[in-house]
């Protein structure tokens, strides 16, 4: 196979759109990176994410998830994907020992149904399927800093993912090369303290940011959120998660790398 003829610096096509109040950035290389099929696939990605936002946005009072959370509709009235997301959320709660929760406490003590810790990674992974059908085309699709990548040729250059310094967004703290796989980062920056430790009922503050690398973006996102919520227990917990690696930046500035367990 003449894989070495694919130059490591193939031109990269870049696309950006804003959905779910997030920048969605796409980088593509290969046959369809710049042409009409590639652009159509990108449009389908955006449509898919907009549809997910209509169903799941907690900022839209008329979304299925908002109505469900207020008890105005039943689960049976919702699109099937709601069930899928809630089931993922329940599995995440169990596997994170309760730290990850799709119920978020509001200031008045009530709980609001908020599966956004699941939805972002899950939705982006789903949307990327529109890119996966493009033959001989590699992609890296990022939704607000959580991304899924694919590289087809074994000899092609991987996507180099920079992990942002949580104390200085202009700086990079670590780099991870990803051929095919996903990267997600959770932390207190950018969106403020929106993560909640479901075990103790507190806002975690030990970790500045945690980045998880996994095959699936849905699980990279869940694990990053869970790890952030787990605080001091995060490194041990991450080390026993199958096929995950990552890096933590503690609130005091120290970094800690986690290598994937072998089985």
């Amino acid at each position: 196979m003449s894989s070495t003829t694919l130059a490591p610096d193939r031109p990269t096509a870049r696309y950006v759109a804003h959905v779910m109040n997030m920048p969605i950035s796409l980088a593509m290389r290969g046959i369809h990176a710049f042409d009409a099929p590639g652009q159509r696939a990108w449009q389908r990605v955006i449509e898919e994410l907009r549809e997910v936002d209509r169903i799941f946005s907690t900022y839209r009072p008329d979304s299925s998830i908002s109505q469900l959370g207020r008890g105005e509709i039943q689960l049976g009235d919702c699109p099937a994907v709601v069930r899928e997301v809630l089931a993922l959320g329940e599995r995440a709660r169990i596997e994170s020992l309760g730290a990850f929760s799709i119920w978020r406490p509001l200031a008045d003590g009530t709980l609001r149904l908020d599966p956004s810790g699941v939805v972002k990674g899950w939705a982006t992974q789903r949307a990327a399927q529109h890119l996966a059908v493009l033959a001989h085309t590699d992609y890296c699709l990022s939704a607000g800093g959580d991304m899924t990548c694919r590289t087809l040729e074994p000899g092609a250059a991987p996507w180099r993912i920079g992990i942002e310094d949580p104390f200085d967004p202009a700086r990079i703290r670590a780099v991870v090369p990803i051929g095919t796989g996903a990267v997600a980062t959770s932390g207190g920056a950018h969106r403020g303290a929106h993560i909640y430790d479901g075990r103790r009922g507190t806002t975690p503050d030990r970790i500045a940011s945690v980045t998880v690398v996994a095959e699936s973006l849905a699980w990279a996102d869940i694990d990053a959120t869970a790890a952030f919520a787990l605080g001091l227990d995060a490194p041990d917990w991450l080390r026993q998660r199958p096929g995950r690696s990552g890096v933590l930046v503690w609130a005091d500035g120290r970094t800690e790398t986690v290598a994937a367990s072998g089985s």
Partner: protein
Amino acid sequence: MKRIVLWFVSTLSAVVLLFSYRTSLSSAPATTTSVTTEKPVGSSAATSTTPSSATPTTTAAAPATSSTTRTVTGSEVETRYGPVEVQVTVAGRKITAVQVLEYPSGGRSDRINAIAVPELVSETVGAQSARIDMVSGATYTSNGYTSSLQSALDQVGL
């Protein structure tokens, strides 16, 4: 155009390899053949020795005489604990045994390293010198996007 020609040539050679492989299988005497199907995912480019995806998944349909017994390893199945390989024993055209192989810990390094580990960069390395393609940070919002590192990468366009 050149890229398409190269792609076609490489596909052609893959097809040629495929057919030559099947020919050698059918003429082989009764011995053990081991074929591993490698999943072309998850591996960072650096040290991977993943064979090309032209390596065929062997099925029981391979031609053989009734006196030939072969053990074939292939048909990798994805489980929540990682990839598991299935070993199939074929006598003639009939599968006589299917065995799930334990995934060996400390086994093939290209599998163990399938999930890349982040490497820390020194404090003085900026995003430009790190030659990155994408930034992972705790959720960028559209509000902060225009001044972000990701936005600088998106605008470079090459």
